[in-house]
């Protein structure tokens, strides 16, 4: 992939910008200047519009007057057809920036006999180019001449001459052709116009139509070769090249609340404004509710929001969100919220984009939630859907709208691969089945520019919205739901029991200690009593001894015994 900032290798090839969003990016600047470009496609693929937009852009934005030669319609009809796109062809003609020459060739009224030439065409063109100094010419669709004239050989020679003459005039030309089943154009005019070939296509898959554009040839220049869906909206022709994503929008550092405080915390404050959040998860994991939270939070801040529903009706969603305490109805009434229920199978992918673009123009939302983009995959082939979603996101990003897309996935990580590069923040909701119940876990798979949490949270839907709970990581793994509640209960009771045991032991020990104290007191008393008794005995002994001595002295005195 080459980015636009790179200078093309061949700087000598000048380019004429088409003014068509996306096409100038694919062609790295526009159509080859001074040469002819063939735009071919089936009926109603937008060939004329592409040519007209090329002329209008030249006149309005690049000061290059232009000439339109139409072989299919009258000038009045062409003017009226594009008036709704804001192309004021009458005004441009008055200002001398445009000349419309109409040759509505009716095959039935032309009879031919013998030789002829298309001299008048170059005369008229030459006159018109001179008059306004035209730099751009559109021939729409010159192939009609093949239908009008039977002498093929003459028409071929004459067209060859006309294109040769055009090249000499150094005008940038767009020539439209009718696509054939097995060839680029029904009558082989790619023979004459071969510097650049753009193919427009209007394909129907599964009853759904999508427009595509492909640059199949660009002599002397690099270009994108993929097929790109394009749309024709009120703003005209618009190609949405996915390669242009992330090139042209500024990045805000402002954080937005998701409306779920703990989720904001996991994302270091919430997703950045203007970023894109993808919520993927199995059915019933609460994806829509997360989207509703984001919207509720935005509307509560007074911001405008857009909710695009691919699976449910607005009433259903308002009711369902009411049951989890999110009143979206009041925001709708206040005009802050616009809900669009898109039946994916009802429109082509291109129409989807067109309507989305229109809604964004009308509602000018700060926040957009695309709920259930997976429903688009009802439309095969899948690759289209991925690129279509990518383009939707591009559309939102390029307008600085913070977007949340929810998608249904069965095998989580693999299925979002196609869009991963477009997603700034990816939240994954997963059901965990255990103990006969399913619970939801929320993971942050990625979040650009954010030190996001690596923690898994249990996602609980309450009557006041989403709450995130810590999950219990026990010996048996992650526990959620009632297993978590039970485990927490079990832990609490075990804790209680342990505490009680300790108390009991403490009491026992206290009692024992008290007992010991009591015993000690008794013993001390006994000891004291024994000591007292001992003292008594001793004093009695002393008294008895003294008495005995006195008795002996009295006896001696009585016996008049000699002293000593």
């Amino acid at each position: 992939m080459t980015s636009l900032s790179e200078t093309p290798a061949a700087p000598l090839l000048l380019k004429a910008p088409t003014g068509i969003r996306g096409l100038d990016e694919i062609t790295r600047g526009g159509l080859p200047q001074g040469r002819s470009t063939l735009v071919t496609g089936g009926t109603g693929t937008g060939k004329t519009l592409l040519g007209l937009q090329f002329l209008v852009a030249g006149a309005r934005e690049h000061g290059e007057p232009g000439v339109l030669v139409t072989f299919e319609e009258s000038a009045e009809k062409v003017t009226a057809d594009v008036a709704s796109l804001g192309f004021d062809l009458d005004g441009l003609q008055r200002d001398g920036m445009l000349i419309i020459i109409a040759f509505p060739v009716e095959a039935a009224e032309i009879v031919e006999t013998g030789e002829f030439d298309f001299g008048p065409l170059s005369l008229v063109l030459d006159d018109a180019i001179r008059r306004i100094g035209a730099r751009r010419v559109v021939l729409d669709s010159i192939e009609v001449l093949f239908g009008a004239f039977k002498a093929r050989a003459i028409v071929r020679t004459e067209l060859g001459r006309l294109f040769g003459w055009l090249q000499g005039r150094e005008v940038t030309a767009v020539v439209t052709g009718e696509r054939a089943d097995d060839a680029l154009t029904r009558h082989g005019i790619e023979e004459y116009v071969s510097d650049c070939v753009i193919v427009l296509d209007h394909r129907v898959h599964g009853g759904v139509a999508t427009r595509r554009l492909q640059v199949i040839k660009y002599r002397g220049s690099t270009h994108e070769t993929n097929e790109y869906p394009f749309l024709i909206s009120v703003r005209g022709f618009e190609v949405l090249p996915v390669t242009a994503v992330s090139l042209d929008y500024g990045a805000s550092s402002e954080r937005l609340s998701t409306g779920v405080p703990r989720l904001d915390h996991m994302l270091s404050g919430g997703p950045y404004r203007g970023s894109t959040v993808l919520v993927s998860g199995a059915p019933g994991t609460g994806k829509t509710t997360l989207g509703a939270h984001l919207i509720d939070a935005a509307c509560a801040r007074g911001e405008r929001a857009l909710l695009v529903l691919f699976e449910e009706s607005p009433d259903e969603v308002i009711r369902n969100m009411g049951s989890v305490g999110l009143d979206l109805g009041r925001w709708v009434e206040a005009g802050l919220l616009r809900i669009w229920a898109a039946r994916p199978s009802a429109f082509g992918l291109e129409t989807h984009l067109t309507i989305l673009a229109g809604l964004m123009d009308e509602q000018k939302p700060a926040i957009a939630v695309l709920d259930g983009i997976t429903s688009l995959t009802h439309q095969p082939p899948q690759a289209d859907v991925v690129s279509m979603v990518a383009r939707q996101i591009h559309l939102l990003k390029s307008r600085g709208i913070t977007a949340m897309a929810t998608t249904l996935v069965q095998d989580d990580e693999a299925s979002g691969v196609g869009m991963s590069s477009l997603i700034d923040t990816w939240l994954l909701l997963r059901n965990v089945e255990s103990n006969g119940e399913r619970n939801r876990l929320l993971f942050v798979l990625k979040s650009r520019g954010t030190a996001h949490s690596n923690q898994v949270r249990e996602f609980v839907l309450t009557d006041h919205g989403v709450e995130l709970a810590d999950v219990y990581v026990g010996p048996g793994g992650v526990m959620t739901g009632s297993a978590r509640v039970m485990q927490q209960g079990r832990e609490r009771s075990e804790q209680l029991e342990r505490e009680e045991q300790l108390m009991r032991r403490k009491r026992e020990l206290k009692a024992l200690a008290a007992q010991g104290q009591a015993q000690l007191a008794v013993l001390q008393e006994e000891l004291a009593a024994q000591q007292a008794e001992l003292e008594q005995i001793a004093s009695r002994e002393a008294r008895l001894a003294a008495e005995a001595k006195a008795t002996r002295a009295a006896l001696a005195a009585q016996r008049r015994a000699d002293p000593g």
Partner: protein
Amino acid sequence: MTPPRDAGGDTDDAVQPAASAEETWELRLYVTGRTPTCVRALANLQRACAHWLPGQYHIEVIDLMENPRRAAEDQIVAVPTLVRMHPQPTRKIVGDLTDTERLLVDMQLRPGPARLTDERG
């Protein structure tokens, strides 16, 4: 888009009153200068008219080189183009008119009630 060929155009001729012998054929020939084809066309036309419509025709030659815008106004993509302005309806024939039979058939150059059947379509 090329509309389906309208075969109904021929029926208009059938209801057209047959040109009377007194009418004058107003013919207009668009050319771009004096290219060989244009010169040949004029010669062929003059010869045919002189033969089939003696004194009953008027040929106006319009040179688009002198007035290119006329081509867009009159819806002339190719030259030479012969336009029968009168009698109505207007008919156009492109080419150098070498095929006199076609000229007679398509321009109804022969006056009077004995018209050739239109073989076109």
